[in-house]
């Protein structure tokens, strides 16, 4: 049986105050203390899609953590081709002294700009369990979407496209079998999916990240037919 000593009451009060000050002045690594992290956001509809987020989550240890899903509803009925892409824009962190010097300041960035937590996204279009890193539009190798001439080319761009319609994109037109001019072809290159569907976000906290304030703007952009 463990024996606990009780300190005199005035000392307990002082200890409580010191503990309180300690907790609010010290930022240990993630692994040591639970941290509540709130994620909120609302995505409007430009002529169609409506997103209804407001997600909060707690990071308790390094590693990946899936957030509550964002429900996507509606329809963009503008001219095609069009795409809906997702990215962060963390250029504003570049001016902070000692801020991120890495070439890819993607994800959530700490208040002092020194640490970041990557964000990953899953759209049903990607397939179950397929997560893609949300890129930062300022990163050096960021390559905007462009159509693919041959379905075997893969995606020669780093844009993370959530939805889109592009009949010029051979990979989208080829359909599930990946071969053009077969019965399962998708002539419009329609890569949209019925709504509502769930857009999942997860963060991946590296062991080196420290607790504190982390922020980013996550842009969900509709790039319409030019």
């Amino acid at each position, binding site marked *: 049986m463990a024996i606990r000593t009780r300190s005199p*009451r005035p000392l307990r*009060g002082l200890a409580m105050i010191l503990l309180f000050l300690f907790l609010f002045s010290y930022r240990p690594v993630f692994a040591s203390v639970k*941290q*509540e*992290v*709130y*994620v*909120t*956001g*609302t*995505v*409007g*509809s*430009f*002529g169609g899609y*409506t*997103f*209804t*987020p*407001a*997600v*909060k989550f707690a*990071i308790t240890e390094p590693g990946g953590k899936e957030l509550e899903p*964002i429900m996507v*509803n509606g329809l963009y009925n*503008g*001219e095609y*081709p069009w795409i809906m892409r997702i990215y962060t824009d963390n250029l504003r962190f570049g001016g902070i002294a000692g801020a991120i010097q890495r070439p890819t300041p993607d994800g*959530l960035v700490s*208040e002092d700009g020194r640490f970041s*937590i990557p*964000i990953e996204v899953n759209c049903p279009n990607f397939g179950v369990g397929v997560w893609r890193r949300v890129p930062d539009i300022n990163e050096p190798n960021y390559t*905007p*979407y*462009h*159509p693919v*001439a041959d379905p075997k080319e893969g995606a020669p761009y780093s844009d993370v496209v959530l939805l889109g319609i592009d*009949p*010029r994109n051979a990979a989208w037109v080829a359909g599930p079998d990946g071969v*053009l*001019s*077969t019965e399962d072809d998708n002539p419009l290159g329609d890569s949209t999916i019925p709504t509502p569907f769930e857009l999942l*976000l997860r963060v991946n906290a590296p062991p080196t990240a420290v607790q504190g*304030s*982390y*922020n*980013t*703007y*996550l*842009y*969900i*952009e*509709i*790039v*319409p*037919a*030019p």
Partner: protein
Amino acid sequence: MKQLSLRAKRSNLVLKARLLQALCAFAMTIASSVAFAVDVDPLRLELTIPADQPSRSTLTITNSGAKTVNVNVRPAPYRFWQTDSTRPPSAETWFTFEPSGALTLAPGASQKITCIVTPPPTLQKDAHAEYVAALLIDELPAEEEQPSEKGAQITVVPRFALPVYLQIQGRQQVLAEISRFEIHAAASGGLLRADIELQNKGTIHLRPLGTILFFHQTSDVVVRASPVGKALPIFPATGLQIPVVVPMPSPGHYKAVVTLNLGQNKILQKEAAFEVLQDGTVH
């Protein structure tokens, strides 16, 4: 007595904190159930402007959602993907807006934004006939969704990128050439493929519309008509290959005629003869 008072204050604080927590949770629930909606009209600006004076155009932004939203409009480089990366020079720095800054739109409210396009003085010496840009319309986060100083937050910003084309008065010239029009068998059997290659030799972008008619070579009877499909802007000094795939006709001699409407009453036509053999090959 003093300790009692302290305990009472502490429990009072705990109660207040719990009440605040409950209120926050309630506020989060309310926030998460609200759908926003911002509509933009028009979805593209194609303007002909004088080189020596400012021009004005209007955008209408409507909040069709149930919550007040803040919207910001700002110019950016042209960001619309083409197969050819050649594009006209940027007009990103030519824009100012009235009213300027972020707009607050109540539910159901519409706001007209005047885009003032002021060409730089150097434009009069410049030979280009067309300039491009994008207008980014961002739905800014509500005050309660602004990045907080505690914890972490992903603030989601919906963005719509509106393409802008500015053509300079007196410099527009619509000129193009169908540089190639070939008919052959498609890679998979049973289909015929027509390849049309259009070269823009004018000074402004083209959006050709067109059709292909297939005739029996001897009788001039139309055996099939097919739209060419919508083309994206083809910028000056660039070309575009437009493929058209149709079912393979029965063996025989045919001719195909493609007709492209370039706008401004400019029509292009080209003809190609071909033969479909018994084995399905095309010559």
